[in-house]
């Protein structure tokens, strides 16, 4: 006998609780679903594959529903048997409850084994059954015509996880919806017969026949695609760009992330971003990334709603997110929804997975440097409460141990770990609660005397409620922390402990209201409380040595509140034209000393479907940023300082205007896009010559305010699906800064515009994957860009007894151009269904051509009169790797 958990398929009308329930010609599974909600035990039934059973049940009080349903079922020729508080519904013959107890248990045990086998085999059958029906939503007699809402959750058939970013649409009626982070969609359709389609990246498309009589709900199940040549490919990625008003949004699923080859073979959530047009980094081992000419601190990085200040491990070699617990990453580089704010350039949302609601499963991965694992599953058989826990750690210490003793570093250590946990509970169809926790920690010391540590802590609680068909709400509260700690015990009298810490508590309340078929409103409130300890220099007394003479110095704590209220309207002006109109008002108050700033931000974007194949979009965004990262290094370093706006340091402001054209070719399999943008920034902080940023109580003196401008064009050809899939892009972009204050000859570069450190005008990127068979695929990644700007010595002079270097204007020269090619071969797990565990293996080579890309150049005057230039290369040779993953 097959046990089916109740949530596979439902099609039922949704009257409010406490009222009378009336189901009209509902299929068996809908009825069972409704019974399950009202029945204490579990209900086992054999799904009705023919779809012929249509049950009509009407009761005045929900408490009578189960009894009435049993009667109706019996009337339709079903047998209903109770056993140990569970209900068994079978067509025809019932089950005997009088078998010997032992016999019964054995049979249950035996059948449960084959159930799993059948479950797996039958995914296709279930999808087919699901898709081959005609769904009647509501009662035909209640139908008043006009337009009605259909909503529901799109789930993965295998584990019941919600699928994010899936397009649900009706081509005929030009309506379109996209699933949110909970897999939830809501679409407006004309009453009567509709054909709706659901499609998502690497998912098989589903097409459904619907008779919509009343506003109601329909959950959709979809299956992950096994790539093959003859498959029909309608891509969600392309549908999305055509349908939504937003532009410059990049969604990358974990499947794609795992295909892209990386150093050491670690699937890397952040490194994959750099393969997208408009996203750059200053160098290979740098943790930060730059979006359309923005600085690294102008990206809002959200992991399950928590802000991540340092998203890297091992000084930028890896990103701090365990790929096993991530479902996708979404980067907004142009149209930023009004709900987000506080950063100038982009928003990166990293969404964690919710976990399997059917079985407890997990994975284990072993790479050259890290080992990781995760486990997920339901707490109860109903799958209403589920969890996912993941952890990752490194064993890179062995590499340090290999160093010769004379290097002085073989006693060094470098380790990190990160832990993720999330629990979600579904109270009922309308209310769910989610709890997330994240902790990452890095500690490295390359000699006995200096240790660097940093950590991220995030915790949040989220309540989601759809209080009616038109209105839904998400409320989140959380706490974020980032801090670092440097300990120097080089000399006893100079031993110190340097600490920096930023803590924030936040609350976010967002509402979505569908007013009518023309207008959907998103509105809400955000508030963040910052508590920042900008620097603590503490003497450190080494036991048994002279006491440290370092003077204790604790910089004043900074406190501030940033709040924002926003509203945005998605307005379908006509079938072909639509717009998103958003406004956000943010208010920031530094409490110590009191100083406030505030201002409106506008988020506007529009879309015109010029033809079936061509979409044109335009947008304007303005942003404000009240927290600044101060750095005089090229890359994000573990000792970078964050600073809140205060009396002296004004908030950064900026706007971006962009236009884009998308067109579809070759049967909609290939998408061509071109996007152009112009961006202005104001009050971006750059360092002053000779600035001291650490332990500086008067930072405003050591930084300069700049104005910035960035512009560029991004051209991309993308083939999201098929045997050969991937993209190629070319970007032309410039980012220029200018010091605002006129300090005459001391102004940076004499007050002229100068290129930012990440200004790399030309760049070509290729990411490709070719599936030979279901099991073997080849990935290729190519990256070319102009060398980044550097400041080099252009002269020398004798001063203070030695030769000193005379440096050029800031960023006046460039390192040689960058080129890299990586390849990887992925071997997918065997498809033997009964096998307990599935191995997947990835071999790859990073930087196949072994090109010695310059990370930076520097000069040495030690040799006296001659100055020798050197080029630092981080990965100057091919780096092979192998990664093994086990799923169970």
């Amino acid at each position, binding site marked *: 006998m097959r046990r089916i958990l109740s949530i596979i398929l439902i099609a039922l009308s949704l009257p409010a609780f406490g009222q009378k329930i009336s189901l009209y010609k509902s299929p068996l599974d809908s009825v069972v679903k409704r019974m399950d909600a009202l029945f204490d035990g579990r209900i086992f039934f054999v799904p009705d594959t023919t779809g012929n059973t249509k049950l009509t049940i009407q009761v005045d009080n929900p408490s009578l529903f189960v009894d009435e349903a049993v009667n109706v079922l019996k009337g339709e020729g079903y047998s209903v048997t109770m056993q140990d508080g569970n209900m068994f519904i079978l067509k025809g013959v019932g089950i005997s409850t009088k078998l010997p107890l032992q016999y019964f248990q054995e049979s249950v045990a035996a059948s449960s084994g084959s159930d799993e086998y059948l479950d797996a085999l039958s995914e296709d059958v279930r999808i087919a059954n699901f898709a081959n029906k005609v769904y009647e939503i509501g009662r035909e007699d209640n139908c008043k015509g006009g337009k009605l809402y259909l909503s529901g959750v799109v789930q993965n058939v295998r584990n019941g996880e919600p699928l994010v970013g899936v397009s649900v649409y009706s081509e005929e009626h030009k309506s379109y919806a996209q699933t949110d982070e909970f897999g939830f969609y809501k679409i407006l359709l004309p009453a009567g017969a509709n054909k709706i389609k659901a499609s998502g990246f690497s998912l098989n498309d589903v097409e459904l026949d619907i008779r919509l009589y009343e506003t109601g709900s329909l959950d959709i199940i979809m299956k992950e695609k096994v790539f093959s040549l003859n498959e029909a490919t309608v891509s969600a990625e392309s549908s999305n760009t055509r349908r939504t008003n937003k532009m410059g949004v990049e969604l990358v699923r974990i499947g794609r992330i795992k295909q892209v080859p990386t150093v050491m073979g670690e699937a890397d959530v952040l490194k994959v971003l750099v393969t997208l047009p408009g996203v750059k980094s200053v160098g290979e081992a740098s943790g930060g990334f730059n979006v359309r000419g923005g600085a690294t601190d102008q990206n809002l990085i959200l992991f399950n709603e928590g802000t991540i200040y340092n998203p890297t491990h091992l000084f930028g070699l890896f990103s701090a997110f365990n790929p096993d617990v991530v479902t996708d990453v979404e980067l907004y580089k142009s149209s930023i929804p009004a709900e987000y704010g506080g950063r100038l350039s982009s928003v990166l949302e990293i969404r964690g997975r919710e976990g399997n609601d059917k079985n407890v499963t997990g994975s284990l991965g072993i790479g050259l440097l890290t080992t990781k694992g995760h486990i997920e599953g339901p707490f109860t058989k109903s799958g209403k409460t589920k969890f996912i826990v993941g952890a990752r750690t490194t064993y890179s210490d062995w590499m340090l141990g290999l160093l010769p003793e004379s290097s002085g570093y073989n006693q060094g250590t470098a380790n990190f770990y990160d832990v993720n946990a999330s629990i979600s509970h579904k109270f009922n169809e309308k209310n769910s609660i989610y709890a997330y926790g994240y902790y990452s920690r890095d500690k490295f010391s*390359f000699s006995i005397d200096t240790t660097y540590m940093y950590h991220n802590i995030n915790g949040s609680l989220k309540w989601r409620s759809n209080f009616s068909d038109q209105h839904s709400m998400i409320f989140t509260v959380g706490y974020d922390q980032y801090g670092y700690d440097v300990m120097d015990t080089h000399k006893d009298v100079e031993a110190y402990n340097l600490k920096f810490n930023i803590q924030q508590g936040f609350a976010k309340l967002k509402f979505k209201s569908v007013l009518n078929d023309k207008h959907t409103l998103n509105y809400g409130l955000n508030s963040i409380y910052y508590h920042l300890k900008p620097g603590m220099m503490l003497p450190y007394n080494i036991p048994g040595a002279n006491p440290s003479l370092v003077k204790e110095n604790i910089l004043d704590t900074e406190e501030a509140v940033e709040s924002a209220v926003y509203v945005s309207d998605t307005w379908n002006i006509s079938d072909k034209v639509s717009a998103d109109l958003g406004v956000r008002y943010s208010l920031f108050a530094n409490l110590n000393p009191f100083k406030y700033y505030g201002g409106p931000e506008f988020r506007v974007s529009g879309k015109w479907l010029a033809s079936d194949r061509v979409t044109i979009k335009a947008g304007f965004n303005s942003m404000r940023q009240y927290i600044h990262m101060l750095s005089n290094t090229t890359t994000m370093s573990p000792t970078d300082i964050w600073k809140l706006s205060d009396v002296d340091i004004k908030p950064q402001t900026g706007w971006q205007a962009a236009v884009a054209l998308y067109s579809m070719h070759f049967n909609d399999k290939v998408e061509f896009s071109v996007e152009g943008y112009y961006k202005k920034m104001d009050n971006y902080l750059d*360092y002053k*010559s*000779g600035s001291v940023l650490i332990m500086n109580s008067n930072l405003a003196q050591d930084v300069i305010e700049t104005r910035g401008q960035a512009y560029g064009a991004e051209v991309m050809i993308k083939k999201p699906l098929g045997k050969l899939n991937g993209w190629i892009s070319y970007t032309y972009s410039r980012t220029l800064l200018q010091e605002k204050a006129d300090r005459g*000859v001391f102004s940076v570069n004499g007050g002229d515009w100068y290129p930012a450190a990440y200004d790399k005008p030309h760049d070509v990127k290729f990411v490709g994957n070719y599936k030979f068979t279901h099991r073997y695929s080849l990935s290729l990644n190519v990256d070319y860009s102009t060398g980044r700007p550097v*400041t080099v010595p252009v002269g020398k002079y004798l001063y*203070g007894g030695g030769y*000193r270097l005379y*440096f050029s204007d800031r960023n006046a020269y460039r390192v040689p151009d960058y080129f890299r090619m990586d390849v990887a071969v992925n071997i997918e797990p065997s498809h033997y269904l009964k096998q307990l565990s599935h191995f997947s293996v990835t071999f790859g080579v990073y930087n196949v051509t072994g090109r010695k890309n310059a990370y930076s150049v520097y000069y040495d005057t030690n040799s006296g009169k001659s100055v020798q230039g*050197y080029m630092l290369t981080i990965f100057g040779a091919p780096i092979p790797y192998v990664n093994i993953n086990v799923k169970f």
Partner: protein
Amino acid sequence: MRKIIYIFISIMTLMAVSCVYPYEVELKDGSSGTVVIEGDILCGEISTFKVALTNSVSDTISSWFVVHELYVEGENGEKHYGRDLFKIGYYEVDTRNLKKDVKYRFVAKISKDVQSISYARTYSTDFMPVLITPPIDSISYQVSPDSTSVSIKVTSHDDTQPEGYYRWDYVEDWEFTSSHMATHEYDYYSNSIREIDFMNENRYYCWGNNVSEDVLLYSTEDVGANFAPLVTLSNISCTDRRVQRLYCITVKQYYISQESFRFWDVIRKNENLSGEIFAPQPSKPQGNIVCEENKDEYVIGSVSCCTVSTMRKFITGEEFGIYKDPFVCNPRSLDMGQWQNAYMDGYDVVTVLEGTPPYLWAKKGCVDCRLYGSKAKPIFWPTNNK
């Protein structure tokens, strides 16, 4: 932070991914010829100024320029003109009689355009008050725990000012000996050995001398008290001849302004850049000299106006107690037939043992101290050795 990159490089080298390669950037034109002025108005001493132009990185020849006039001017109108030291760009100004309550400025008229030699530009500072440098409290030394090196440290404080920006430079002199006291000398051409007049011809006692190259600064900005304790001036390894017999350091202490401190600090930081992953970006030092005819002209140099405190300290090799001879100097006896070859191989005679040969020979470095210094004994030297 530098360690991080070293380890990083080491790891990558281990993985056969070598990391540092020589590199030459192709420079754009117009990168030489910035005016560089070094020197301070030293109230109560003779001040030395040096004028130069920056060279391109690979050039060794200075660019052409002419100094028409160079002087220190008081706000009261007094002018002290510079005297050409006949060493290109070096000038000396007698500032021994400057008044401590008058503000002074530095002025130089320089032309650096071959086409119009007569057209000079004026490079000057603002009038600056004389900063009264406090005396040096002490010069001390600290031997490392493993006795492999010693650091020379200076301590100073000032009760009259709440904050102080200190700069130091120093001259080092040291007396040392060769490992062996050679009593004889070899003559290659006659292949003969003769006894020397030890008092006048010895190669045993020598003197070395050095001036500071590093930028030595200390700011009491973040300390809370105007106290500069045990600031390291120099680190000397145990195999360095400085710590062998008698070491002398003459330290000059200058009070500089905050702006000047920043200028020197940028120079110091630029020196320590190495292209590390987390290295700060280089920057241009901002001095206090302005070209009056063209305020947009960048000039390198920060001239301070202050009194000078000088302290000299002698430390004996016994006090350091860490010296280790860098060479193994075991003498061996050689026959006459081997002398010429041994001499060509870098050996020299040490002595003749009692009576007749064998003659003892050792490496030249063990016998002749002049390889590492000179016979020029400083005039103030306290020992009678020659």
